[in-house]
């Protein structure tokens, strides 16, 4: 029973109040959310919520079963750690001083992120990657003077021909369909 972090993909009705229902379930049952992202999907009927949470095996199973009971939830799944693409984006505003500018630029280079705003006193970095990469970058630039910071939280997709939405056509089905159209 390890107290591991895990990522849950949830496909929900694209309707008002659904996010409240999902997040209030976590509060009510005492499950911890590390991050939560939500947005539209390829199918306008559904939104996709990605929740990063932690807890032992029993908690993980309970979360899935409780979330599945919500009327607006269509699909819910723990995304396998070793077979998923996980990304988070952060915007970090730093002090723009001649003494530290080179350190910042080399960190930006090493972490392969971008400078998206530059003003006489501040500059803003956009960094994308998994959460630990962003953590590492923040550690490096912290002494250089972080003025403001925001992170999106993790969003994730499973690799290969595996879809959260069970209605999504498989690769073979799409090929069949295209053949028919030709």
């Amino acid at each position, binding site marked *: 029973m390890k107290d591991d972090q895990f990522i849950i993909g949830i496909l929900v009705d694209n309707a008002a109040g659904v996010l*409240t229902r999902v997040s209030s379930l976590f509060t*009510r049952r005492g499950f911890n959310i590390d991050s939560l992202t939500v947005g539209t999907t390829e199918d306008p009927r559904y939104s996709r919520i990605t929740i990063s949470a932690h807890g032992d095996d029993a908690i993980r199973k309970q979360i899935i079963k409780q979330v599945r*009971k919500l009327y607006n939830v269509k699909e819910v799944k723990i995304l396998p750690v070793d077979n998923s693409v996980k990304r988070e984006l952060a915007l970090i505003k730093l002090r723009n001083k001649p003494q530290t500018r080179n350190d910042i630029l080399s960190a930006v280079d090493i972490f392969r992120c971008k400078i998206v705003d530059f003003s006489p006193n501040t500059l803003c970095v956009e960094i994308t990657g998994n959460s630990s990469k962003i953590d590492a970058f923040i550690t490096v630039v912290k002494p250089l003077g972080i003025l403001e910071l925001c992170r999106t939280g993790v969003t994730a997709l499973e690799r290969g021909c595996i879809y959260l939405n069970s209605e999504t056509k498989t690769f073979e089905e799409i090929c069949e369909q295209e053949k028919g159209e030709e």
Partner: protein
Amino acid sequence: MKLTGAQITVETLIEQGTEVVFGYPGGQVIDLYDALYQAGDRIHHVLTAHEQGASHAADGYARSSGKVGVVIATSGPGATNLVTGIATAHLDSTPMVAITGNVSNAMIGRDSFQEVDITGITIPITKHNFIVKHVEDLADTIRTAFQIAKSGRPGPVLIDIPKDVQTGICEFEAADVVEKEKQRLPKEFKIRLAANMIRESQRPYIYIGGGAITAKASQEIEELADCIDAPIGSTLMGLSAISHENPRFLGMEGMHGHYASSMAQNEADLILAVGARFSDRATGNVSKYAKKAKIIHIDIDRAEVDKNIASDLGIGGDLKIALQELLKIVEPKKNLEWDQRLDELRREEQEQFQKNCSDDLLEPYALIHEVQKHTDPDMPVVTDVGQHQMWVAQYYRFHKPRTFITSGGLGTMGFGLGAAIGSCLATGKKTVLFTGDGSFGMNLNELATVSKLNAPIVIFIMNNGVLGMVRQWQNLFYHKHYSQTTLDRKTDFVKLADAFGLKGYRISNREELSDVVAKAMNEDGPVLVDCLIDKDELVLPMLPPGGSFDDIITLKEDPS
């Protein structure tokens, strides 16, 4: 046919088989009440004294009939007054549809007069809820609400209907009664695993909960118990699923359960949980719960499996089907040593009972036995919450499912009188309500409803002048600091009955017991009986909080 939203609401309720609705009018449901007025010959509305009473009545109606209970309230305070009733239904998995009015869509969010976000408030205490924004969606929303309420593990659903949706007009076409959603079948290999575990056990124990009643699985449970030679114990919510006449039935287990039932559970090597959820009141300290037992947990709600207690085998699905499948393959067996041990436990329980009771005092069990003499097996018995509830659960002998109506999970004091109204209307039978002076005080305004309906409800108030259950805890675990539990009120319940237009009686001692109970039970209309019992009477056995079944308190303190 073009109808208003209010008319559509009423027509859809009727279409879905609703015969009775409970409720209370108000500003934002005037249109709905106008539609009810027009349809008065096809749907019966029961006006209660308070929305909370209406919500408990709809709950009691649903528990007694198995049908969806319907309650209507206005926006704002009307809606918030339903909250306790909805939460009560939610915790005990009762199918209910609550309809609230709200201010017009354009007025929402402006803190308008009597505006609350009732869907926001009731998210955690409903299976699902809706706010209807367009009259075109109304009929289907109500149908979906009925389907959600009665499918799978039943529960309450709330529909909030803004005023402009009630007045809006659209085409309406009646549809069929919605079917319950199909449930996935229990997995076959799991049924086989269960049969193997049963074969290997020597001390099996069948532990049933409210799900056994919902699933109508009484017969299957009894057959399985006979086949594998196992005793049956029940949670509070499971009572009435199995007749007390069944010699295998040990009664309620748990915090105030029967000694034999609790101890057998503690000593079992296999617990087969059927539609029960291992509530803390049923298990005591979970870390010490039934350590010798393997656990098979069958429940329609898969989230219950491994929620409170880690099971060795979880089977999701309909209980009745799971048990039928199990009965096809399970091997009949005998557990002779276990049977002997169970007899021993039953004897011990009987001895404790004899030591605890006396012949001359007006003891709760004596009252319950006396009342039972005048009841038939179909009569609903309703309770409030507290000591009297536990005594009824322990001593009343139930024979048929859905005859015991009580607030289990939420433990709602004030539930009883409203629920009794609902049960009485659902069954058309004389209904017995056991209550305490504390619980009764909470919603006694519903006497007005009982009296107006002239409903044959016989109310027995176990009046000890104290909040007995909390006092019992204070007595046993809080150094007899009776903080705010001595009511010491001047209420004369007999006069109160008279004021509300009911017959009132009082039983002050054991000698008066049989005559007065007989008189009360033979009245045609509603009756209230004020029964003066001793304030220091305890509910025993008792599992101390945080304790295990080894710590069970069984005997009254020796006064010397």
